[in-house]
C-alpha cells in the first residue's frame, strides 16, 4: 500500500448526515459569546436579560424565514422529538371537543409513532395509512380514512431513512377541505430542500437545528397563527406559555444562523449534494451486483443513498466500513437495540433479507467527491468478503 492511500485511509468520512450534521464553523462562532459573555436569561429585566432576549428574537426571525413563516409563529423546543410530541399532544388536546381521530402514516419517525401509540391508550383513535413500494403515500388513502371525528393529520415531509418526499400540498388541500389541522414532521427536510409553510398549506411543522448544520438540543415547531395548541411543558410564560422553560439561548442563536446559511446556500447545496448522491448510486450499481436502491428515484432527498446488498447483513457491513473510517447506518434488525428491522423497510414491502442488507449513506455539504470515490473503492471488496461468508449467497 503506498503511503498516500495509507494516510487517506486514516481520514474519517461521515456519510451519516441523516442522524446529525457537523455544526457549521460560522454557526459555532456566532454561539460562543452567548455562553461566555452574554449568558443572561431572556426573562430577566436587566441588560444581560435584554441582550439574550434580543438574540432569541433575532434568531426567531431567521428560523421563521427559512420555512416562510412569520416570527410569532415559531416556538423553540429542545429537539425534533419534542416538537413532534408538542404538535401531536398539543393540537389533539386543543381539539378534543371536536373529535378524537388522528390520521398519520406507517413510515413516520418514532417520535410520531410512539406518541400516537400512547394517545391510542388515552382514548384517541389512530389511523395509519400505508405507503407504496417507493415510500409514497396515496392521498386517496388519507381521504378514505377521514370521518366526522377526524381532527388532525400528521404526515412527515420526507422520510429520514429512504428519503422519499411526500406530496404535502395535495394532503393539505384534503385537510383544508375537511377542516382538519395538518401537521408535518419536517426534520429531514427543513434546510435541505425549499420549504414554504404557506405555499404548502401546513398548520404545524417540526424541524431541528442539528439536521441543518446547527447545534444539538434545539428545534422549533411552527404553529400557524390562530391555531390552538395546549402546552405539554408547564411552568413559566416562555414561548407565550406554549413551551415553558428557560430558552437555550446559545442553541437558538446557532439555530438562527444555521437557518440563515441554509437559506442562502440552498440551491448550491442541493446541486452539489445531489450530484454526489447520483455518483454514489451509479457507482455502487456499476461496481456491485445484486443491489437494490430503495425509495423513490424522483421524489428523493438530495443526500439520500439507501441501498440493499443482497445476501449480507447491514451491521457487518457497517463494522467493516467503520474499520475504514467510514460512518453509515443500516435498517437491519441486528443494528437495532430492539432487534427489529426498520418499520419503514417493512412498510415498503422489502423482503426481510433485503432489509437485513440495507445501508443508508446520507450525504451532506461537507462530503466531497474524493470521499465518494474512496467509498466506491472500499465497498466492493467488503461486500465480496461478506458474501463469501454467506450461506445464502449464490453467484
Amino acid at each position, binding site marked *: 500500500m503506498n503511503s498516500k492511500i495509507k494516510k487517506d485511509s486514516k481520514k474519517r468520512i461521515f456519510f451519516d448526515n441523516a442522524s446529525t450534521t457537523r455544526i457549521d464553523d460560522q454557526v459555532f462562532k456566532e454561539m460562543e459569546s452567548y455562553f461566555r459573555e452574554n449568558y443572561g436569561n431572556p426573562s430577566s429585566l436587566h441588560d444581560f436579560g435584554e441582550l439574550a432576549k434580543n438574540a432569541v428574537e433575532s434568531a426567531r426571525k431567521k428560523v421563521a424565514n427559512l420555512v416562510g413563516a412569520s416570527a410569532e409563529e415559531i416556538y423553540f423546543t429542545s429537539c425534533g422529538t419534542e416538537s413532534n410530541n408538542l404538535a401531536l399532544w398539543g393540537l389533539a388536546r386543543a381539539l378534543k371537543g371536536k373529535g378524537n381521530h388522528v390520521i398519520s402514516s406507517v413510515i413516520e419517525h418514532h417520535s410520531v409513532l410512539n406518541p400516537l401509540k400512547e394517545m391510542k391508550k388515552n382514548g384517541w383513535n389512530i389511523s395509519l395509512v400505508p405507503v407504496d413500494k417507493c415510500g409514497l403515500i396515496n392521498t386517496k388513502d388519507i381521504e378514505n380514512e377521514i370521518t366526522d371525528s377526524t381532527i388532525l393529520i400528521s404526515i412527515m415531509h420526507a422520510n429520514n431513512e429512504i428519503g422519499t418526499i411526500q406530496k404535502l400540498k395535495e394532503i393539505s388541500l384534503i385537510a383544508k377541505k375537511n377542516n382538519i389541522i395538518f401537521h408535518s414532521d419536517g426534520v429531514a427536510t427543513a434546510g435541505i430542500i425549499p420549504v414554504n409553510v404557506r405555499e404548502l398549506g401546513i398548520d404545524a411543522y417540526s424541524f431541528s437545528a442539528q439536521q441543518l448544520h446547527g447545534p444539538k438540543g434545539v428545534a422549533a415547531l411552527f404553529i400557524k397563527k390562530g391555531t390552538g395548541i395546549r402546552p405539554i411543558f408547564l411552568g413559566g410564560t416562555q414561548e407565550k406559555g406554549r413551551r415553558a422553560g428557560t430558552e437555550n439561548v446559545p442553541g437558538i442563536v446557532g439555530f438562527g444562523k444555521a437557518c440563515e446559511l441554509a437559506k442562502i446556500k440552498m440551491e448550491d447545496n442541493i446541486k452539489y449534494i445531489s450530484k454526489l448522491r447520483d455518483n454514489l448510486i451509479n457507482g455502487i450499481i456499476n461496481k456491485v451486483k445484486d443491489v437494490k436502491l430503495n425509495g423513490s428515484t424522483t421524489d428523493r432527498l438530495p443526500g439520500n443513498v439507501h441501498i440493499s446488498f443482497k*445476501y*449480507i*447483513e447491514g*451491521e*457487518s457491513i*457497517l*463494522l*467493516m466500513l*467503520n*474499520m475504514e473510517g467510514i460512518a453509515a447506518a443500516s435498517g*437491519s*434488525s*441486528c*443494528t437495532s*437495540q430492539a*432487534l427489529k*428491522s426498520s418499520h419503514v423497510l417493512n412498510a415498503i414491502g422489502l423482503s*426481510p*433479507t433485503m432489509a*437485513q442488507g440495507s445501508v443508508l449513506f446520507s450525504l451532506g455539504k461537507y462530503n466531497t467527491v474524493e470521499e465518494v470515490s474512496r467509498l466506491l473503492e472500499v465497498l466492493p471488496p467488503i461486500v465480496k468478503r461478506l458474501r*463469501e*461468508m*454467506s*450461506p*445464502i449467497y449464490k453467484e
Partner: protein
Amino acid sequence: MVAYSKKVMEHFMNPRNVGEIKDADGIGEIGNPVCGDMMSFYIKVKDNKLEDIKFKTFGCGAAIAVSSMVSEAAKGKTLDEALRITNKDIAKKLGGLPKNKLHCSNLGADALHKAIKDYLDKKGK
C-alpha cells in the same frame, strides 16, 4: 461502534474456517429466530473426531465471530467434547458479548451440535 471486545473484532475481521465442505459428513443449518439471520456448519468426522469444520454465516459481527470461535474451539475435538461446548463457553472465550447480542452466541453452538447430530443420524441408518 458497537461495544465489541477486541477478541470479537479480531475473529470478525479474520474469521477462521469460513467455507463449505462439499462431501460433509454432517451439516447443521440454523436460523436466528430473534433477528432472522442464518448459520450453517459443515463437519468432517474421522475416528470420532472433528477432523474439519467449516461454516457460513449471514448475520451481524457477533454472529460471524461466534461461528469462527465455535469452529476453532471444536476442531480436532471428539464428538462428545464438541457436544459439550456451550453457548456460554463461546461468549466467554470471545471476552463477552453485548447483552443484546447474546442471542447470536446461541446460534453458534446450536448449529455445530445440529451438524454432529446430522452425522450421527446418518451413521445410525
